[in-house]
């Protein structure tokens, strides 16, 4: 292991968490991410046993998930692997595919609430996507306050927002601002 201290996308050495009303938001630096694309005419692999989803889809196992990002392209998301070479692990699972490290290309934020509807109301203030369609099993890529984001819903009580790592501070500002207003 390198003798270096990593920083979160928000510039801290630990993840942050804030609660407004029944909404709790925090960043998830432990999540790893790698992109996977298929070569011409290559068969569709089953990395970590995942059945890669079709357009707009998201499938998850206990530790790993696959997010459709474009024709013949996915992001593979994994828990607790943020500091590892996750791309190499994906590559090992899909040797013929084109795999690119994306863990630090993006930063993940989880918004949780016991009330899924509260997450829906927050979404209304953030993205022009029908909150009803941001459900477990779907992945949506869209813009949020002029930032490109990838939205997944690991479960009804959790919304995950992936954003380009360099935008993390601005995304955090937008999300906690909207959540604060919702709680007011």
């Amino acid at each position, binding site marked *: 292991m390198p003798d270096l201290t990593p920083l979160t996308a928000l510039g801290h050495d630990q993840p942050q968490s804030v609660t407004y009303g029944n909404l709790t938001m925090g960043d998830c630096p432990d999540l790893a991410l790698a992109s996977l694309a298929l070569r011409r005419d290559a068969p569709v692999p089953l990395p970590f046993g995942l059945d890669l989803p*079709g*357009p*707009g*889809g998201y499938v998850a196992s206990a530790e790993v998930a696959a997010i459709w*990002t*474009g024709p*013949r392209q996915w992001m593979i998301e994994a828990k607790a692997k943020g500091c590892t070479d996750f791309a190499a692990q994906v590559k090992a699972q899909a040797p013929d595919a084109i795999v690119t490290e994306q863990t630090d290309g993006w930063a993940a934020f989880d918004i949780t609430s016991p009330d899924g509807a509260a997450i829906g109301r927050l979404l209304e203030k953030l993205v022009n996507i029908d909150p009803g369609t941001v459900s477990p099993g779907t992945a949506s*890529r*869209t*813009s949020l306050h002029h930032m490109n984001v990838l939205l997944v819903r690991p479960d009804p009580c959790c919304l995950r927002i992936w954003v380009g790592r360099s935008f993390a501070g601005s995304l955090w500002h937008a999300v906690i601002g909207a959540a604060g207003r919702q709680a007011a």
Partner: protein
Amino acid sequence: MLIPHPLLGLRDAEEFVYLGDASLMQRPDPDSPTALTDFCDYVFLRDNPAGVHRELWFHEQGDRSWLVVTRNTLTHEILGAELATDAARPTVTQEPSA
């Protein structure tokens, strides 16, 4: 406006970047004796119809697909949209089913 993305359904046009006439997909043969003229027409001249127009939109905030959208420039009515990769060649890329 809403763009009917062939894979993702209706998406707000704000997620897209507009390029222009779909004829920009027909890049001329650079080795033709008339290449210079052909390229001038290709790069600069447009039909610019008041009516049905085939045009290129890039889903920049979404799945990064280039689409060929058929839209009426008088009413903004959209008559259809397809992936540029499908428009460019006859064989369709197979998507794994969800």
